Structures are given as C-alpha cells and as structure tokens.
C-alpha cells in the first residue's frame, strides 16, 4: 500500500508544489504535507505528494551500518 519513491526537489513553485527528479525522471508533486521544503532536499513521493523529507544523515547511517555488517560492497 506504500509505494513511495525517494526523489530530489529541483524546483519549488508557490510553496505548495514543486518538481522532483530521480534517475532522470521528473514529476510535479504536491509539497503541502511537509514543512520548509527546499531545493536539494530528498523527499519520499507517494501518489504525487511528498509525504516526508528523507533524513540524509540517517540514510548514511544505515548504509554505514550495512557496510560494517557485510564487509562493504
């Protein structure tokens, strides 16, 4: 039920909408569910809405943890 794609904000219009990009694909999305969105922020997109900003520090932590557990990729 939870198809959510991480994507980067590349444009903000009027504060309520913006454009995201990931892997060469762009889409206009609604930013009304998150606060203080900025160009360059990573968000999770679900049904055309950004439902949260992604915590990049935590993302790096997860990757670091995996690297430690698995001896690196």
């Amino acid at each position: 039920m939870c198809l959510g794609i991480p994507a980067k904000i590349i444009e903000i219009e009027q504060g309520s909408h913006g454009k995201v990009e990931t892997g060469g694909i762009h889409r206009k999305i609604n930013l009304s569910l998150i606060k203080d969105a900025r160009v360059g922020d990573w968000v999770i997109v679900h049904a055309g809405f950004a439902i949260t900003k992604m915590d990049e520090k935590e993302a790096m932590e997860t990757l670091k943890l995996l690297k430690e557990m698995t001896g690196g990729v």
Partner: protein
Amino acid sequence: MFDELRDRRVVTPLLSELQKIARDLSPVRIMEVCGTHTVTAFRSGLGNMLRGMGIELISGPGCPVCITPDEVVAGAVDLLIRQKDVILTSFGDMLRVPTSKGSLLSINPAPASSVRIIYSPEEVLAISRENPEKETVFLAVGFETTAPAIAYIVREAADKGIKNLSFITSLRLVPPPLRAILSSGEARLDGLLYPGHVSVIIGSEPYEFVPREFNVPGAVTGFEPADMLLGILSVLRQMKEGKPMVDIAYKRAVRPEGNKMAQELIREVFDVEDSLWRGFGVIPKSGLKLKEKFNALSTDARFNLKHEGWGVRGCGCGDVVKGKISPEDCPMFGKDCNPDSPKGPCMVSYEGSCLVHYKYRGIEWKM
C-alpha cells in the same frame, strides 16, 4: 541512491547474520503487514531464502484493494450503471476487482459515463475542471499513507466550491486490524514488520499496544530487500532478548511522532468510524469517513448509492488477508482463480498476496 540495499553482496551476508540468530529461534512466523513488503519479498526471492532458514513471512491486511469489501465496489458499480455523465476515477487495480456484475473496467456504463485510471489524487481536480458537464467521482482507497493526500483534495474541492466532484471513500487504519489479528491468535505470530510508509504518517507510537498488550516484537520496516532484512533482524533480536518493542528500522523516513502536519490534515477532513473489512467484518474505529461539514462532497450522499453486492462465490480472499490461510491453501488458487481470470481482489491487486504468490513463485533455495 540505494542500490546497495538491493545488492546480493549486501543481502547475502545479512542473511548469514539472520541465520545465526534464527537457528535457535526457528520456526518463526513474522507478519509483514504491507502489500508492498509482500511484493519486495517475493520479487527478490527473499521470502524463499528466509523460509530456508525457518522464517516464514506471512502476508497481512495491508493491501487496500484487497480489504475493501464488495459492498463498496458495489456502490461504485451501481452508480456507473445507472447514472449518466459520470467519470469514475480510481487507482488502476481498484477498477479491475471482480464482482458478481463484473469489474468497474469491464461493465457497460450508463450513456456518456466512463472510468479513468489516475496515478495521483490531484488529477481529479483537473479532470473535474476540464469536464464541467460531468460528475467526477473519485473512488478513494487507501490507508494512512494516502489519506492525507485525499484529505488535501477534499479540502481543495470544498475551498474552491467545486460542484462537480465527489468522493466514495474507502480509507482504513492499520493498527486496528493488527489488534484483531493478535487477539484472535489465528495467525500465530512471533513478530510484525510494520508498514514503513504508513508509519511515515502515523509514526511508531500507534503500535505500542502490540508489545504492551500482546508481548509481540515488531519493527517499522522499509521496502528494499536489505531494509526488510534489517527489520527481521530487529524482530529476531527482540525475540532472543525477550524484550518486545516497536523498533524503527527505517529511520531515514520514519520518526516516532510521524508527520504531524499530515495527521492534522486527516483530522481536519475525516472522522474515525467503525468500518467493514473484507474477511474481518466490522472492526471498531478502523476507518475514516468525511466529516459532516464535507458531506456535500460524498458521492453516497449525492447519489444515494446502493451498496448491495457480492463477490465471487468461493473466493478465499477474506481468510488470506487475515493471515489465516496462505494463497496456496485457497481451493481456487491457480486453477479457477488466476491473473487472467481473477475471482477476487487478492489476485487482481499488484500487491495482493495471491497475485504475488502466483507471479513470483520461488524455488527451493539453500544457503
């Protein structure tokens, strides 16, 4: 960005870690609540690898199309057949659920009426604007992940005074059926993987009753293969230490308090109500309905929909969504019921357990 999370060079060693702990605990039954978790587990072959070490993943009720009861679809079918100048919109899978009269995509609509598949709820605003002479109806299905988006659209429609748009809402909440499943004990669960994106909205707090009242461990889990393994690892560790909790194994997206803005928006537009679920019957306080002040936007109120309908006789989806039986246990699975000729929503929805089990059959796997 997250290619490592699907890479076998990460997944395989992670599995070894799991195996070390699972050895003393198996057999283990973990329910992955979310349909998207089912898809990941099967598409990647993870489910099979885990079974090989005594960890059984059981699909839960997290497929909104699957748990929407026949009565809701019947209401939409009723409208489409008798009311002209309607554009009925919904997400793709919803339109293919079979009923005794056919699916929304397959039935003959009333004159000048049609169905349209949409990707984002925002599209219905444009559709209603571009078709002023028609009534745009949005069959809105989903859990807490989607509810804020729907709430936003309802509020927009109300604020802008849009007269030709209305909603058939079929929105439900995740924690109540978990309580029902754990109370009945039918699924015999050792742990839960909580849905990562529902939890983005509601946080981890709503699941606290699970370890507190039922002593069952759980982890809020993301959707890449490595994410799922990290979630399962957390559950196994909790089992080993005998300290069940609600762990967040998807920290890059989920905070314990969730998304407050989204929660407020849901509260602004919806009231919680007792809701009918396929398989479970009525679960108290498990659904969302439009607040009185938005009632004018309810398709039900506008058109007095008849919700009499039934699905296909013998369909086992009700027991599948509860985790009581696996798809393979349903007598119709793979025979009368298959993707080309589905008999129930679990074989229609892309994340329906039956379709996933059918499409992504694994093979014996030994580490």
